[in-house]
Each structure stands twice: as C-alpha cells, then as structure tokens.
C-alpha cells in the first residue's frame, strides 16, 4: 500500500522528482570523483616511491633488518621461489645481495651500498634499466658494475673506467675486486644517487664469498594496497626463519606522510558533504513547501498523519536510492574516462615529474571501495535530511495548509 502510493506519487510530478534525484545523483558523482582523485594521488605517491628501490614487500633472513650484515643472509632456494611465485597477487620477485663497502677510484674513496642484482628481474621490479643515462644495462654474466651518477661524479669516474671495491664478505672474509663501469644510473633521490653500486648477483656472490646467498628478496605485487595482507600470508607460509616486511614497515616515514595527507584531505570531503547536504536539503525543503496543500487535503479527508509520513518517507527512500544508484552508475564511466585518459600535467611541473621518472599525469583511482563508500555516505545524508518533511507533516494544520 505504502509502496504503491509512494511509487505513484513519485511519478505524478516527474519534474520535481527529477530535480530531487538529480541533486543526489550529482552529489554522489562529485563525491566519488573527489575521492577517486584523492586516493589516486596517494596511490601514485606510494607506487612511485616504492618503485624507487624498496619494492612493495621484502623478505630477509630473520633479524636482517635490525642488523644488516651478510651473516644474516639466506639461500635462494628454488622451493622458496616456487612458493612465492605461486602465491596469489604476486607479480614477480628479484633477489639481491646488499652490502656496504668502500669503493675507490684513483684519488677518491667513498662508503656506499653494493647491490648484487639479477638484471632481468630487477628491471621488472624497479625499472632499473630505465634509469640508465650513459653506457649500458647489465646482463647476468657481466663482470662489470653500474654506478649511480652522483657517486660517479664524486669519484670522478666515467663509463669504462675502473672501480675498486673493498669490503668485508661472508663470515668476515675480506672482499676486494675491480670492475669496469658499464653504465651510469640516475636516481631522483639525492641520497640514492650518491650511494648506489650495482653488480650482477653471481659476481657479487663471488666477491663477497657468499655463493648462492642473498640478503633480500624484493617482491612486486599486483596491487600495492594489498601489501599488508600478502605480508601476513607470506609470513605465515615462510615461518620464523624469515622476516617479511611490507613497504609500510620498510619506510615508516612514507606511510606516515601518506596517512597525514589522507587526514588533511578529509576536510575537502567534509566541506563537499556540507554543500551536498545543503543542496539536498534545499530541494527537500522546497518539495515539502510545495506539497503543503496536497498534504493538507489528505489529512483533511482523514488520512492519518503517521500513514502520510510513511508514504513520504517511502518516497524519499526510493528517490534517494534511485539517485545514489544512478549517481554511482554515472560516475563509473566518468572515473573510467579519467583513468583511461588522465589529465596531463603541463608546464614546469611536467618537467619536474619527468626528471623523477614519473608519468606527468593526474591519476584517478578505480578501487571499488570508493564507489560504494561515497554512494552510501551520500545516501545516509539524503535519508537523514528526509526527516524534515516528516517533522513538517506531524505538525501540519490541515486548514492553514490548504488556505496557502
């Protein structure tokens, strides 16, 4: 009964219904767009910073992160590899042997990070091959090194010059070697740019007398937002001999920054909700005023106020839900459009982005949660606001209402 009456009422004055619905549709659409670009921005920051060097998840021997020595390395076994490769959500992984050592040219010496890498895998995880500015990228069998640009400048070395590495190997053995420089890589972060040396994994295992050992397994996953879940699953699967760390634990300051950003952006959404709420309230209010006469007549001919309220509430619920659904449906192509054809950044900022090796675009997130989260919030706002006509009906004086 309520439903039939409400449904008929809705279509009796189509224009009014459409205006009310439109205010909700538009509200949902805007809220989703705002949330999508906010999450997209944060997602891109995560992804970019993580792909600098750290990767989304790392696996070490238990205790390595607190005490980074070669003695805390582990054997890169096939069974471990298989276990990781077969885990859902993981794209690929790369082995590294990371160590600290002194590097020297004829006149200069500097402490730096020596990373033994699997060249093919490393380029998949951190796109190291794209960071080459001079010379060539490594191959598996090479007996040469890649040097960060800043470090090369510091040591006054160029491509094809010789670099001397001096350090400590596995279990205190001494490690010394000299290598031709095959290429230079450029890191946007000045810190990395001054301290990185890359060697093929095999060669570095030989240099540090650590055959088959690695210190770090860097894992690239499909969706960085799932890093925490995968971290937990891997930790369970691998047992206590290994430590599994997601990027939030590897780079707590980045996580902090992003969380701070998310909080600060909340205010934008709050202000948007205020505007949306008032926009909807305005329409609901006008609708109520417009229907005073009609309500008056109904009450005068004996409809109980509670029943009338029930009808009006049902109307509002139907309109709100229809609005929220169509708003969400409408936002899907809009967000998808911006996802496929993102807004390009222009001007000075474009160059800055490219210097960092980022794509100069504004990224929109298409995480499903954004869609229903915003639709539900707006729906709630609309439903709370529809209490107003209820209040009006319960205080209705039929005679005065009809005279208006």
């Amino acid at each position, binding site marked *: 009964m309520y439903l039939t009456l409400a449904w008929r009422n809705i279509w009796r004055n189509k224009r009014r219904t459409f205006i009310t619905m439109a205010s909700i549709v538009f509200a949902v659409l805007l809220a989703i767009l705002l949330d999508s670009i906010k999450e997209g921005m944060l997602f891109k920051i995560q992804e970019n910073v993580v792909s600098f060097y750290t990767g989304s998840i790392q696996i070490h021997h238990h205790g390595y992160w607190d005490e980074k020595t070669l003695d805390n390395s582990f054997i890169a076994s096939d069974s471990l590899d298989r276990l990781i490769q077969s885990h859902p959500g993981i794209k690929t992984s790369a082995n590294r042997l990371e160590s600290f050592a002194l590097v020297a040219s004829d006149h200069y010496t500097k402490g730096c990070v020596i990373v033994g890498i699997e060249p093919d895998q490393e380029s998949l995880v951190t796109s190291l091959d794209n960071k080459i500015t001079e010379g060539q990228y490594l191959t598996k069998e090479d007996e040469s090194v890649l040097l960060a640009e800043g470090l090369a400048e510091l040591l006054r070395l160029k491509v094809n010059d010789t670099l001397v590495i001096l350090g400590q190997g596995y279990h205190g053995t001494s490690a010394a070697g000299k290598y031709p420089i095959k290429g230079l890589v450029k890191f946007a972060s000045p810190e990395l740019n001054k301290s990185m040396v890359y060697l093929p994994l095999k060669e570095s295992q030989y240099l540090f007398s650590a055959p088959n050992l690695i210190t770090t397994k860097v894992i690239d996953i499909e969706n960085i937002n799932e890093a925490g879940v995968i971290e937990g699953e891997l930790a369970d699967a691998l047992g206590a001999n290994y430590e599994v760390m997601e990027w939030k634990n590897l780079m707590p300051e980045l996580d902090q920054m992003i969380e701070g950003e998310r909080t600060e952006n909340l205010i934008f959404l709050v202000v948007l909700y205020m*505007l949306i709420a*008032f926009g909807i309230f305005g329409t609901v209010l006008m609708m109520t005023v417009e229907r005073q006469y009609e309500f008056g007549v109904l009450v005068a001919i004996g409809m109980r106020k509670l029943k009338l309220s029930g009808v009006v509430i049902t109307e509002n619920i139907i309109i709100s839900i229809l609005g929220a659904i169509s708003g969400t449906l409408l936002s899907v192509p809009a967000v998808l459009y911006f996802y496929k054809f993102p807004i390009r950044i222009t001007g000075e900022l474009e160059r800055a982005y490219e210097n960092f090796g980022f794509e100069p675009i504004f990224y929109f997130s298409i995480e499903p949660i954004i869609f229903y989260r915003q639709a539900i919030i707006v729906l709630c706002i609309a439903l709370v606001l529809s209490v107003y006509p209820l209040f009006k009906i319960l205080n209705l004086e039929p005679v005065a209402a009809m005279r208006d």
Partner: protein
Amino acid sequence: MLVAIAWKNIWRNKVRSLVVIIAVMLGLWAGAFILAYVFGMINQRLQDAIGNEVSHLQIHHPEFSKDFDPKYVVHRGDSVLQMLLHDDQVKAATGRVLANGMVASATTSTGGKFIGVDPNLENSVTSFQHNVVAGEYLTNDDKNKIIIGQRLANKLKVKLKSKVVLTFQDVDGTIVAGAFRVKGIFQIYNSTLEENNLYLSRSDLAELLKVESEVHEIAVLLHDPEQVENYVTLLQTNYPLTLTQGWKQLAPELGLMIDSLDQYMIIFLVIILLALSFGIVNTMLMAVLERVREIGMLMAIGMNKMRLFTMISLETIFMVMIAAPTGLLLAYGTITWLGTSGLDLSGLYQEGYAAFGFKSIIYPQLDLIYYYRIMLLVILTAFLASLYPAITALRLDPVKAIRKL
C-alpha cells in the same frame, strides 16, 4: 516599481528565500574556507620540511655536497652570515660545521653525521629545541655535550649522560676523535634524520676539525617564502665563489610533492565549486516550480516576458546581495578564528600515528584579494545558476500554469 515587487516577493515567502540565501552564503563560505585551508596546508607542509630540515636556502662551497670534505668551507662564511643576519628580508640564519664519521658507545658503533651548531641561531632557524624530548638542548657554554636522536640512542644503547666517542677526519685528513656526553635526546618526524644526525656545539666540532671560525653550511630562513628564488639569484651573484641553493634544489622530492599537491588542490576546488553551483541551480529550480501558479497568474493578467525575467533576476540579485556580505563575514570569522587557534587534526589520525610525534595543526589563512575573487566567482555562479530557472519560468503556458495545484 519592479524593484519594489521583487523585494516584496523575497519576503513573501521567507523559507524559500532563506534557502537560496543560505545556499549562496554557504557556497561563499566553503570556497573561501577551502582556499584558506589549502594555503594553510601548504604552509604547514613547508614549515614541517623547511622549518625542521632544509630551511629556505642553504649556502655551501660548490664542491662540498659532492665530496663532503671538511676543507670545503663557505668562502668568507663569517661575513656572509653577518650580512644575512642584518638583512631585512632574512628572518633567521645560522652557520654550521659538518662532519661525517663513526660514533661509538660502550657496546657498539655506527656511522653518523655530526652537526656543529650555534645553539641560539640554530634554534631560530629550525626550532630544534622543540624536538628535544629528554634531557636539555645545548647552550653556548656547553663543552663536549651532544644531542642524539631517539633511534640512534636505542641503536647505541645509550642514555642521557652516557659517553659516546666520535671519530672522523679533520681538514688535513688526519683521524681525530673526541668524547662527548649525551645531554639531550631528540625525536623528529623523519626517522632517517633521527638515526643519523648528532648535534653538538659548533666550537667543539670546529676545534677538532681544525676549521677555526669557518662554516660548511649556512642555512637561511626568509620572511617571505615567495622570495626564495629571487634571493637565491641575488646571493649567487653577490657571492660567486659559493653555491646557493633554494629548498626546491636541496630537496627536489619535497618540491615535486608540494607542486603536485597544488595542482590537485585546483581540481578539488573545481569539484567543490561544481557542487556549489549545482546546489544553487537545484534550489532555484524548486523555487520557480513552486511559483508556477503565481507566475502563470502574472502572465495571464498581462505582465510581459521581459518584465517577468527582470523581476526574477532582480530577486536573485537581492538575495545574492544579502548573502554575499554575510557569507564573506562568516568565512572571514572562521578563517581568522582557526588561523589563530589552529585546526587540530590529530584526533582524526589512525591510532599509532600520533606516536611518531606527527603533529598536524593547520592554520587556515587567506589574503584579502582571494575574498574578492571567491565573491566574484560565487556571484557569477549564482547568476548563471538562476538563469536556467528564470528561462524555465518564461516558457510556462499561463493557462496550464494556473490550473496546476
């Protein structure tokens, strides 16, 4: 005549007029507030990074950043610093002596960056004193006292008053060492700094390094952050033997982040303004819809379309004229109030983040010129928004309109 009718129309149906007036007011308030919030946010972020870390600009020997060799001191650093301290544009400046080396406690040792500071000047530039969470900050009379980060303290397993030994190379390349007592422990939002940096008095470090009164780094804070680039150019021309760099060069990641946030803010603003204009269009449409009968009557008794349109437009103008000043006043009030007391967001943080000492109080701020711009923008939006309902009203067929409920 029309003016009087329009004015009376507004007050004939107070609820309807109030809805429109409040919609415009709220729009103005939201626009101004969001803009002020964005400015406050950028400012706070700059202050976090610039205030604690890089400062607006830094002066080094051109070779220093490549080699970190103690012999590369700032050319005539003392006189440059004196000049800066007397410049009106400069808010604060300080000189630092720097060294890289090993720090050892009774149990273990690790690498570190030693920063020799003038306690008072340093505090005026980086407010470093605020970061000291245990013990005390340095004073000018301190001899062989040092302040280390919480993380480093944990790593070295040292407490207040413990002794640590610093080892590094002096200007001649000789290895020197000095024993220092931990006077204070600091915490900072950036964990790398907390693990690497050690602060001691400039004279202590200079003596060990044998650099006398020279400095390796001069950090400068300006009054006006907008002037950084100009000032860098100015210093670079005046002191060609030194290297002056603004914060964007010193911390390129930071510059990139802030610039891209700025751009995102513009998109946010556009979305907010869209929401505002849609709210107004909707309310206005409803208002016209409600008046179908009345407008039909006016047309039926012979009011022509031009006059009707003018009447409706006049009503809009009046309502906006009431809404604009009140909205602006409201925005001004909110912004001034929050600008002094600050908008504390720490309650919104997920648990655990506050533990990092991550403070986020935003002080919204807005220059007068932006109030005008927002007002123009919103008034324009309101007019455009009222155009469609007015045109809809003109299209009404008087006979049908009167017959309507």
